[in-house]
């Protein structure tokens, strides 16, 4: 077990390193740099002589060759210093720390909706395979995850926030008030959660179908066990293995969709932070946010794999 964990951790470090290198290089290859972003905003109303600009670039070490800049950055990261954000005028770690709870709460809320809606639906459809409800549920699920998420979000905004005025349109809500936060979380979480609920429902349904066909279920039925026992003890528990994998992956996908959804609903969070910092060429913030994001995704994947192995004792940590 320990051996497995160590191997996974080493792999994760290597993977994060690759992400970091790619981001580092790409963002510096993009036309413009933080100084350009600043100049584009002040539009010749502020000091902008080439000598001054060159001096700023020297101070920010932007004139050094890429490998040198990279080494300096890594040296700082290893010591725990992610740098200072130009756009927020604060340490990157602090900016990310301030905003990451909002992405996490969105991802978890979406996951909750996805599971609460998708799981029962999938179980029901799997059990009542073939009848009209199964057909309707499957059709609804397939349509759900075929629709673009931003589209679902816009429809929800127009109907529930603009026409019916039931929910607020933008923001994350005052942190002190639970009700306010939930109000602001509702529509974005539903948007992200609906597509994932559909996915979970489909996976659950097919997992249920698979297992209901298995021999040991037939045996249980033949033994005369009550249907409910059959379902609960044998079917559902074994179905949880592939289902939990899907749930874990859903969390990863909710994180991935956060950029579009956060932008759409005017929420702060890592996704919208990445988009904003790219536009402003805030190198330190882009790298820091992508790094944190990559680490988060890898942690989720690791948890999924560990959970899968734990649930399925037949898997050895090969």
């Amino acid at each position, binding site marked *: 077990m320990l051996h497995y964990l160590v191997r996974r951790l080493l792999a994760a470090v290597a993977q994060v390193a690759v992400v970091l290198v790619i981001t580092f290089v790409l963002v510096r290859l993009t036309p413009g740099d933080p100084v350009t972003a600043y100049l584009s905003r002040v539009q*010749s109303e502020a000091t902008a002589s080439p000598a001054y600009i060159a001096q700023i670039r020297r101070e920010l070490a932007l004139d050094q060759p890429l490998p040198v800049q990279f080494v300096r950055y890594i040296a700082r990261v290893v010591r725990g210093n992610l740098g200072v954000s130009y756009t927020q005028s604060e340490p990157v770690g602090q900016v990310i720390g301030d905003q990451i709870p909002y992405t996490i709460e969105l991802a978890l809320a979406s996951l909750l909706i996805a599971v609460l809606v998708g799981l029962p639906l999938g179980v029901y459809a799997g059990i009542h395979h073939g009848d009209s409800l199964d057909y309707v549920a499957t059709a609804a699920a397939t349509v759900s995850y075929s629709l673009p998420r931003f589209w679902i979000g816009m429809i929800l905004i127009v109907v529930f926030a603009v026409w019916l005025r039931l929910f607020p349109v933008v923001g994350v809500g005052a942190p002190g008030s639970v009700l306010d936060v939930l109000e602001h979380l509702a529509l974005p979480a539903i948007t992200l959660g609906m597509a994932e609920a559909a996915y979970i429902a489909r996976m659950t349904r097919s997992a249920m179908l698979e297992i209901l066909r298995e021999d040991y279920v037939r045996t249980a039925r033949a033994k005369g066990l009550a249907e409910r026992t059959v379902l609960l003890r044998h079917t559902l528990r074994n179905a949880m293995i592939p289902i939990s994998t899907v749930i874990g992956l859903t969390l990863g996908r909710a994180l991935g969709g956060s950029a579009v959804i956060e932008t759409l609903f005017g929420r702060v969070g890592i996704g919208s932070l990445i988009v904003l910092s790219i536009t402003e060429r805030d190198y330190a913030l882009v790298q820091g946010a992508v790094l944190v994001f990559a680490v988060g995704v890898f942690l989720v994947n690791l948890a999924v794999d560990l959970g899968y192995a734990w649930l399925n004792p037949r898997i050895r940590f090969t």
Partner: protein
Amino acid sequence: MVRRCLAVLAVVCVAVTAWPWTGGAQQDARPALRVRLQFARAGGIYDPARWRYTSDWFVYPDLFNWLVRWKPGPSPNQLEPDLAERWEVAPDGLTYTFHLRKGVPWNNGLGELTADDVAFSFRRQMTDPKMTFYAVLNNVTAVDAIDRYTVRFTLKERDASFLWTAVAYRPGFIVPEKAVRQLGDGFVKAPVGSGPFQFVQLTPQGEVVMRANDAYFRGRPQVRQLTFVDIEDENTAAAALQRGDVQVIWTRGNPDIVKLLRGDPKIRTTRVVEYDNLFQVQFSSTFKPVQDARVRQALAYAIDRRVIAAALPGLDAMADVMRPAQLFGGTNDVPTYPYNPAKAKQLLREAGYPNGFALAFLVQRREPDTTVSQILAAQWQAVGLQVKLDVLDATAAFDVRYKEAFNVTIDATARPGDPHLFFWDLFDTASFPPYGSNYLHYTGVDSLIDAGRITLNERQRAAIYRVLQRKVMEDLPIIPLFYRAYVLATGDPVVSMTPGAFSMFWGDTIKVRR
């Protein structure tokens, strides 16, 4: 027994009705308002001398004061006293003396605002090259506190635009010397000012919170607290206003949202046209065909502004001239280029392009640039050009312009109040990129720009600028398209508010329903 009960009841009734006056006197009944920031929130620098982000500029006028300020309103065309009650300009135009108001308090109880604070506020920007407006103040040789309430500025050269651009605008905010020295870099996050509001905090969600400064010298603001929130999308901003999530929004570029808001009886809207904010076509000195004035004129004749107006109905005001007559230094008596595609094709033939030419059109990824560029591209294609649109984000687009690696682009130039900076930035030889916006490297009106700057007599200045504009409208180094407009929309409980131009949010002009 009954009498005693009645007596107790009476006492209770009196107590209940009297309570609001006793306890309520301590309560602040003024509303707290939420305001939509007009720009994407990147920022958090609240020391005005280190200004970097447009969204921060929005809040400075509420935290600080100038010596002299523009009269709040949609078109800054008049100066009025702010911290200075009166001022004098020496006949030679090289000395400005300001007499300060007495008894203006700093909002942290640090004492009174004096001439030393004024001198400090300017000197620190003049001596440190890293300060944002270091170059703007390079005409000022000295700022001296003559006595506790008198400040004198000494200039190197005469500059008729000095009051507008240096004193009443970017570098002109006055900060407390003691607090800046004490807090050092901490002042950026915890500013102290004399304005109608006092900075409270920048929340992690990116909201800027300010509370009323009841000791403000113009009087107690009618709102208790202002919170600026960032809403990117115009639809969501309008919806937030209608829903009551915010009470004040500025909106640009979406005429249909404006129509929607106008139709809502609970919302008051005011349209503000910024006649100093000119949206224009710009040419690069590196693109051969447009070096010929006839080609530029042809492109101007090919533009049908009615189509642009139809695409932005009720919003921006179409412009045939650079600076219209309603502004100081403006005139409508100049050559113009009304829609005439036949004339456009003829001019192109004369210039040697009977089959047109290929044109790469640099566009920033935002409104109204994308809408307008598609219209212009279609109209230029109709006279024989082959137009390709290059849409880039703001930073990448600026990088391309900075390096002069484009053919044609569109952009807005906004220089409020005094005409000098406007013409200097667009047409002066000293404004070739990267110092300014003279992308075509036009050199036709340098002497007129200089003359306009050093002439103090207003009538003479106006005449100079008229001549200048006739020349630039002949040579057409840029093509004027329209003056930008926005709409200020307010909801309950705001009754009225004076709209500001150029990112000025006049928080102290807000009047609320009692």
